[in-house]
């Protein structure tokens, strides 16, 4: 029995010791300390910028991470932590705003907002940018291995080609998958007509033999390892993959696709609203935006920042599409819970049709 008492006591002491030791590694916030709580995707910001921000303003950054928009929503909604700043995707901004979870952003405190390209402001999900400021943006397209297929994926329909048996990876997301099926039929990816949605679903079922798997973020590692010839994927992820595997190419098919944004928002629970504004403005500074884009690899909406990046990057129309290309892209509209339910249900049925 002595062994057990010893084991338990020792464990408790080491455990409490470890907990206390964190106070020395990173001193806890005192009463007078100014800090902002940021809730962001993992590895989605250059950590050097966080340090630099603290140096410049004296505001400490407490940084927490989430792995999906929906999980973030649950956490913020329950209000256990007062996050001062979060970085959801655009469709989530609309949802949060509908639920009165966001605070209006004071543009006067954001002189650097002028650096954001005009085409990224005033979009449907937040017409006056009252609640959100774009952080990164991108498209949905096909990442593929040009040496292993003759197809160039300028049309969505090429995914249905018989040469791709068991060779396509899809992202595990209802809107994206239903969206490209709708686009391939010349419909909008914001379609709500049940017949058209059902037709899109039927078309997806025909795609089933070509599907190697429907996966989440692991799709990146799999494409790096040449696990399949083609993948339907977000441009940001495609970009990351292409850094590791230079044989791959990315294209946005012509039939239309999705234009997405990740944006800064200030949740209603925020304590340090001034600090949050300062941070947004800091990140909007062209040099910082460029440094961050260089680290993260996604497309920056910061026009002045973009000019500071390598020229080869600025002119890469795969990730910075021309205005004409952008014409064909659509931002997701909030279709309401009921319609989204139909999307989710059809997508689940599609997955159950995979063999």
């Amino acid at each position, binding site marked *: *029995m002595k*062994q*057990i008492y010893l*084991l*338990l006591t020792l*464990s*408790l002491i*080491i*455990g*409490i*010791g*470890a*907990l206390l*030791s*964190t106070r020395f*590694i*990173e001193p806890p916030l005192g009463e007078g300390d100014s800090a902002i*709580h940021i809730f962001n*995707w*993992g*590895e*989605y910001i250059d*950590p050097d910028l966080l340090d630099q921000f603290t140096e410049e303003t004296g505001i400490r950054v*407490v*940084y*927490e*991470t*989430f*792995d999906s928009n929906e*999980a973030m929503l*649950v*956490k913020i909604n*329950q*209000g*256990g*932590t007062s996050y001062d700043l979060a970085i959801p995707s655009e469709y989530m901004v609309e949802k949060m705003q509908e639920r009165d979870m966001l605070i209006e952003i004071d543009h006067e405190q954001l002189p650097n907002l002028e650096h954001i390209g005009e085409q990224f402001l005033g979009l449907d999900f937040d017409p006056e940018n009252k609640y959100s400021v774009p952080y990164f943006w991108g498209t949905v397209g096909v990442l593929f291995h040009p040496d292993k297929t003759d197809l160039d994926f300028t049309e969505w329909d090429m995914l249905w080609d018989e040469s791709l048996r068991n060779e396509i990876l899809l992202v595990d997301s209802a809107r994206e998958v239903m969206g490209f099926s709708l686009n391939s039929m010349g419909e909008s990816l914001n379609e709500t007509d049940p017949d058209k949605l059902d037709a899109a679903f039927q078309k997806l079922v025909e795609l089933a033999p070509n599907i190697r798997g429907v996966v*989440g*973020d*692991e799709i*990146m*590692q799999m494409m*790096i*390892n040449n696990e399949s010839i083609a993948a339907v994927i977000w441009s940001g*992820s495609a970009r*990351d993959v292409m850094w*590791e595997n230079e044989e791959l190419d990315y294209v946005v098919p012509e039939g239309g696709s999705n234009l997405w944004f990740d944006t800064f928002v200030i949740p209603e629970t925020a304590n340090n609203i001034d600090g949050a504004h300062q941070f947004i403005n800091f990140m909007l500074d062209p040099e910082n935006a460029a440094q961050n884009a260089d680290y*993260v690899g996604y497309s920056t909406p910061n026009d002045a920042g973009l000019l500071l990046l390598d020229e080869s990057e600025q002119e890469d129309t795969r990730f910075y599409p021309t205005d004409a290309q952008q014409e064909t892209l659509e931002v997701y509209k909030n279709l309401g819970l009921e319609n989204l339910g139909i999307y989710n249900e059809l997508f689940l049925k599609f997955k159950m049709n995979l063999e």
Partner: protein
Amino acid sequence: MKLTGRLFLIIMLIVLYLPIFYLAYYSFNSAGTMNEFESFTFDYYLSVFQDSRLMVILMNTISVALISSVVATIVGICGALSLYFLKSSKIRASLLNINNIMIVSPDVIIGASFLILFTFLGISLGSVSVILAHIAFSIPIVVLMILPKLYEMNTSLLDAARDLGATPSLILSRVVLPQIKPGILAGFFMALTYSLDDFAVSFFVTGSGFSVLSVEIYAMARQGISLEINAISTMIFLIVLTIVLIYYFLSTRKTVKRGDLS
């Protein structure tokens, strides 16, 4: 037969450790990814120690696991004993059912309901909520590990002790607890295992800047997991392995001295 047995054990160990060696191998890959080994580097190990955020998260993870396992073990012992001494087998069966619900519930449900629970009770998210949650989901497995040991206990031992005039607390500490020691140990280690393995529950109940390793790892998935995580895992693994080997070494020496081969 003995040889095939040993062979089977060795094969199983290889299979069980294969993914871990795989992770450890790539933690030395200078290419920064888990494919195509480029050249050997210690960079990721060094950067773990320079990254104070990661160090804090590592310490948090260790302390949550240890503290929650100790408390869960103690409550679990109480639980197993009270179930064992219950007279009504009907009540026992239903209590045991409730106990098992926690083990079999999907993590997402547990996590989401704990989040609601904590906000309802006004417990702010942070170290306390995470430790409480981990204690909560570890208790049932401890109970389940100890209970069979109690059933195997010879009840005449208890009667004998009582006849000899031992008080209940004396019976408990001198007769019962020593009998169920292996169950307690197993329960403690399973609690540690559950705690270190958990992601979903932790995600929902972390907050106020307090985070644990698994939450960090999952959040990294979108951008690709950095090899520092491989490095941390390899280190944790080696440290624990060393402790176990030392234990092994000490106990073999002891047994040889005593000439006791059990």
